[in-house]
């Protein structure tokens, strides 16, 4: 059939710009930066960066959890709003995402710094400046701020797909509001939670801008390490090796989460 041929330009594109680059990463990760010969040195020297990698994963997990705690009630509130209001509220949640995240993060600096807006206000009440920036908390705040919409949107989609008659049935069968939530709404929204968590976790674990602006010397993230290998230290082979590890890790995490969520619910979502 001729229709099949329509996909061939894309198949060629995909091979060159998706598959080949990954091969390039593997090639660089296993070769020496000077001689170009096969070596395991890059992979071995990742060992020096284990503490940073673990810390990145930890901060990204904490951010995902906070996003869930904040985002779930917001998604629920939107899903329970009037039909005509829902679209407007969702646009309101999405709008900040499409504005420069660099500038929005810079705005946080002026809120949090020692001479910043929050400390100025506190100062008026005679409270001495709090260390709000250059620490883990500030980095987590930056992540939560930037990626919260990624949590709200998938949870909202799942919640708005729940058949209201299921909730009525649960009520008829004697559930109170807490029971309806715990036994019907929450289990049905697991797939949205999983997809929200992974959508927050992936960009959070690999960020380098947020940690650079809001973090200090002690909050180097794995993304910072990769960035510096390419932009300042110029050791692309080590950078490629760390990228490879990061990529494998992300794919394992996502694979695990998908297994966790089960496929039936995903089908129900479609």
């Amino acid at each position, binding site marked *: *059939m*001729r*229709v*099949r*041929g*329509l*996909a061939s*330009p*894309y198949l060629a*594109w*995909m091979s060159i*710009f*998706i598959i*080949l*680059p990954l091969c*390039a*990463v593997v*090639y*660089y990760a296993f070769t020496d930066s000077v001689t170009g010969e096969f070596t395991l040195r890059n992979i071995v020297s990742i060992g020096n960066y284990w503490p940073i990698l673990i810390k990145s994963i930890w901060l990204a997990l904490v951010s995902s959890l906070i996003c869930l705690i*904040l985002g779930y*009630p*917001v998604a629920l509130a939107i899903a329970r*709003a009037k*039909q*005509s209001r*829902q*679209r*407007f509220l*969702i*646009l309101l949640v*999405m*709008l*900040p995402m*499409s504005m*420069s995240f*660099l*500038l929005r993060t810079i*705005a946080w600096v*002026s*809120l949090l710094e020692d001479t910043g807006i929050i400390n100025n206000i506190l100062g008026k009440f005679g409270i001495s400046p709090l260390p709000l920036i250059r620490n883990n908390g500030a980095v987590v705040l930056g992540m939560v*701020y930037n990626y*919260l919409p*990624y949590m709200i*949107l*998938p949870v909202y989609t799942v919640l*708005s797909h729940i058949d209201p008659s299921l909730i009525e049935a649960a009520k008829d069968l004697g559930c109170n509001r807490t029971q309806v939530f715990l036994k019907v709404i929450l289990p049905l929204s697991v797939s949205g939670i999983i*997809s929200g968590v992974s*959508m927050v976790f*992936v*960009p959070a674990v690999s960020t380098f*801008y947020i940690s650079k*602006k809001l973090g200090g010397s002690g909050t180097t993230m794995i*993304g910072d390490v990769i960035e510096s290998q390419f932009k300042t230290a110029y050791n692309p082979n080590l950078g490629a090796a760390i*990228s490879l590890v*990061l*990529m494998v890790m*992300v794919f394992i995490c996502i694979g695990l989460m998908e297994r966790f969520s089960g496929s039936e619910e*995903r089908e129900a*979502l*479609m």
Partner: protein
Amino acid sequence: MSRALKIILIVVLFFLYLPIILLIAGSFNTGTDLAVFKEFTFSNYGALFRDRTLIPLLLNSLIVAVLSSVIATALGTAAALGIRSFGKRFRSAVMTVTNIPMTNPDIVTGVSLSLLFVLGGKLFDRSNVLGFTTLLLAHITFNLPYTILSVMPRVTNMDPSLREAAMDLGCTPVQAFFKVVIHEILPGIVSGLLIAFTMSLDDFVISYFVYGPSFATLPIEIYSYTKKPLPPKIYALFTLLFAMLLAVLIVMNIVSGRADKRPRRSNITQLVFRRKDVEKT
């Protein structure tokens, strides 16, 4: 909506918009520090219009966004139509690869493309490969999955007999596409185009690894100000872009609200987090 939920919603929306309000206030400020509002002024807007670096960079961003979203939409639409007719196994393999740029952290996508371009440059004996072309190729690459995933559901839901009927009535396949098929999948094409355009316009991480000194975009310039304080005309530009986007969204909301009275979420909303659910289509 119970009261507690309403309060959380309002607090979170305030949290999301607080930095934006601050940036807009900064555009009317005589000082350069966002934290201290000195006096009200329009002079930052004047400085913006007289500026000779920001506007060309914004134009660069727009050029890349328009070209990459149009090319990705054309390639992606063709791909979505073709992929439907593949066998189940091959189709799921293709969709798995298509999902890679969406699942991968942006930094890995950027790094991997930059390594490819550097290797390619070595192959053709050119040292300065990074520039407009590599930036465009990278943007098309990360836009493609969004356009494919946006068109795919429309193609799946389309009745195949429509196209067959058009051909029976004497249409060539090309005519059948432009007279029948395109009307069925147009909403998917449009939303794919819009998503690709906004993704491309705002992308920093991938661009940062594949741009060359000869051709930068606005986000890259903003990033390069990391150390020094930002000139407030950037806040003026931000405010103007925000106002434009707001206007577009309001108009779109009114138009699509009139177009269908049936309650339906916008395609864009659905697509943003659709990435993993697509193999099922």
